[in-house]
């Protein structure tokens, strides 16, 4: 059973379109991160959200942490081919020993 469910797992859209990727759980997280990974490389941290309801913007990317700190979304406006990659969410569990759990990832392809 996946503790952190990411959807969709695959997404292929045209350049200029908007998209949203979701990360959902029944567990509460003290923080949640989004990473982007390009083929053959390691994941690179994009953002960390820590407060319920928090919204962070990184150019055309908007990240939101749910009010109950159980879910998060990543919205990309006017996608570009350079946004292509694997997007991973990861949450730090609030209970017990600090444990980071990862979603399965969303493989995003932006077509020219």
């Amino acid at each position, binding site marked *: 059973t996946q503790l952190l469910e990411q959807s969709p797992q695959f997404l292929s859209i045209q350049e200029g379109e908007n998209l949203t990727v979701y990360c959902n759980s029944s567990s509460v997280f003290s923080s949640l991160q989004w990473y982007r990974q390009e083929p053959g490389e*390691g994941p690179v941290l994009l953002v960390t959200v820590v407060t319920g309801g928090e919204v962070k913007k990184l150019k055309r990317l908007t990240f939101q942490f749910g009010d109950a700190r159980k879910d998060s979304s990543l919205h990309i406006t006017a996608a570009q081919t350079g946004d292509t990659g694997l997007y991973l969410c990861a949450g730090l569990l609030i209970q017990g020993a600090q444990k980071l759990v990862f979603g399965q990832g969303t493989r995003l392809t932006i077509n020219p």
Partner: protein
Amino acid sequence: DVKVTQSSRYLVKRTGEKVFLECVQDMDHENMFWYRQDPGLGLRLIYFSYDVKMKEKGDIPEGYSVSREKKERFSLILESASTNQTSMYLCASSPPAGNTGELFFGEGSRLTVL
């Protein structure tokens, strides 16, 4: 520029061989981690270490061991490689407890076991 460096980007080994994957970080981080990444399964934690000479099992430690003799170096060892250990291996580091869990990853080591 802070960095996590993995010694080998690509390795091909035969079943039964001993495999060493090395990872070095220059950020003076206490915490270091080894993950493997497989399609459809995401990242799975193999082992982690919160201090020198200290190691803890992750979710899938079977068939692996680790060594942390120095703060900056964390090694993953496959005592006798098997084909089901063909995977992308990712090393990561993070600052000490009390942080928000952010990880800094190396570029990955793609291991193929024949």
